[in-house]
């Protein structure tokens, strides 16, 4: 049976608007390894044409039965932005292709020296593959299902790490101006992507930013703001787009980040994370920010999803529903991307649990 995308769209729209949907929406984001396993395609096959990528992605997400539709090659400015940078700078061989998992740029390969940072060319996202293929695939599936595609950026720390490698951490202390000059280039590249996205897919209504600097095991909050947050704020203010924050780190600065962004005049629409794993934290978050949408809240891919049984997964989803769903503005979403090692039965258990426990009015969850 084909997936009822109209029902998913209505469910999501109700949740985003703070209204009561028929049931709690649920989402999974696959990484390339899980996408490859289900679709049977290698990563290069997926990217061989926009039609093939769109069709394979639709097949896989319909198979999983979730309320979201993503691409098998994650359309955020992560690994494939690395490929685009590598091509734009004549170093395509620094990108390591893998048949059945996420291909990646060798960290630090493009910006090892100050000169390389100075000379770094940003890719033209309308021309440098795989972005034209990915953007066209997003447009195809948006047209086919009516499900709006999402603008997924990575302003800026994950790109800093990818381009500069571990030297970035020394630069934070010893050469912050150099690092900021790299951040400015990344920012310019993400703007270029935004323009290419708008042209190919349409003007986005929201931006989802994957941010990693804002974690207490990595950078101080002040440094995270300096090398990541200020760029997010600049982007959101310049475009007028509301922000959905993705942070799959272990020690996110949730409160500080949301408060600072709001002080800066950014509309924080939602948060997407699974740490901390303490559900009471998320209940507290909901009370503190009743208007902020939560896509999560405390289901980690590295816990029950990887090591538990389907029953364990269902129980964890139930606990999340009991604590979070009554307040609304909530989507069940284990994080981060579904990787290799997660049994398909555990992915399916997420949907089963939502069907079992997540229907409004809530009676089964407790």
């Amino acid at each position: 049976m084909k997936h009822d995308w109209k029902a998913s769209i209505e469910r999501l729209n109700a949740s985003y608007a703070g209204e009561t949907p028929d049931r709690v929406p649920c989402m999974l984001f696959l990484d390339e390894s899980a996408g490859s396993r289900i679709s049977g395609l290698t990563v290069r096959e997926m990217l061989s044409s926009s039609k093939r990528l769109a069709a394979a992605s639709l097949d896989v997400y319909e198979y999983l039965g979730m309320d979201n539709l993503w691409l098998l090659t994650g359309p955020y400015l992560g690994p494939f932005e690395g490929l685009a940078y590598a091509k734009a700078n004549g170093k395509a061989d620094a990108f390591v292709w893998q048949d059945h998992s996420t291909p990646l740029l060798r960290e630090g390969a493009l910006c090892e020296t100050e000169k390389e940072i100075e000379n770094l060319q940003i890719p033209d996202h309308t021309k440098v593959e795989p972005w034209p293929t990915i953007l066209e695939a997003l447009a195809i599936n948006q047209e086919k299902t009516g499900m709006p595609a999402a603008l997924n950026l990575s302003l800026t720390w994950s790109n800093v790490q990818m381009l500069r490698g571990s030297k970035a951490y020394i630069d934070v202390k010893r050469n912050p101006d150099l690092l900021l000059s790299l951040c400015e280039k990344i920012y310019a590249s993400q703007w270029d992507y935004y323009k290419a996205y708008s042209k190919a897919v349409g003007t986005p209504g929201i931006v989802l930013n994957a941010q990693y600097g804002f974690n207490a095991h990595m950078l101080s909050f002040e440094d995270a703001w300096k090398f990541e947050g200020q760029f997010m704020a600049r982007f959101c203010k310049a475009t007028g787009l509301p922000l959905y924050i993705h942070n799959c780190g272990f020690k996110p600065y949730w409160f500080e980040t949301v408060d600072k962004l709001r002080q800066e005049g950014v509309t924080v629409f939602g948060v997407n994370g699974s740490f901390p794993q303490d559900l009471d934290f998320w209940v507290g978050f909901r009370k503190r920010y009743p208007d902020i949408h939560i896509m999560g809240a405390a289901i980690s891919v590295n816990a029950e999803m990887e090591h538990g049984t389907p029953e364990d997964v269902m129980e964890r989803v139930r606990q999340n529903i009991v604590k979070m769903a009554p307040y609304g503005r909530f989507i069940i979403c284990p994080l981060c991307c579904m990787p290799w090692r997660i049994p398909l039965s555990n992915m399916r258990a997420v949907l089963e649990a939502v069907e079992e426990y997540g229907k409004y009015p809530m009676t089964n969850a407790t």
Partner: protein
Amino acid sequence: MPDGEVLKGLRKLLLDFDEEGVEKGIQDAFKEGFSAQQILNELSRGMEMVGEKFEKGDFYLPELVLSAEIMKSALNILRPRMVSGGATIGKKIVLASPKGDVHDIGKNIVGGLLEGNGFDVHDLGIDVAPEEIVKKAEEVNADVIGLSALISGGVSSMAETIILLNEKKVRPKVIIGGAAATPEAAKTIGADAYAKDAWQGVEIIKGWI
């Protein structure tokens, strides 16, 4: 009798991330008559204080990485003058990002900290096959193998490495870390330890030595 203030000053210089100051302080300490071992002990105490501050949330990765860089420079000065090694000197660690994973920032940070603590680090780099890791461990007679994975496919490769190691007569201890690794994963695949961050990894390894 050497003046102990020179040594205490070294510790402060390390905590201030003053690399030139540390190098000069080491020379001053030598002039005052302190041995390389005494200087190393003091700097090691400084590194412990860096670690304590990291665990308390007063320091972050940049401070951890920078202090390790300074310690590496200090060890380059101290090593030729050390009569006998510290507990960690000469202990061999093989590090790698396992097959399928080309991330190396976490591994590099651990490697830097280990070198800063006097370990002899053999970094095999990224995307390293299980056979290659086992071969290198045998070749250098490794005391510990450290594996770091950011993507979950790397955990599968870690598991394969341990399966291969278990077939050998002498098996070094294996510690795993990185975003894709968890205590549960360590248990499942038969690793000897899991480290939640670079500092904890170094502390666990030091505990084994």
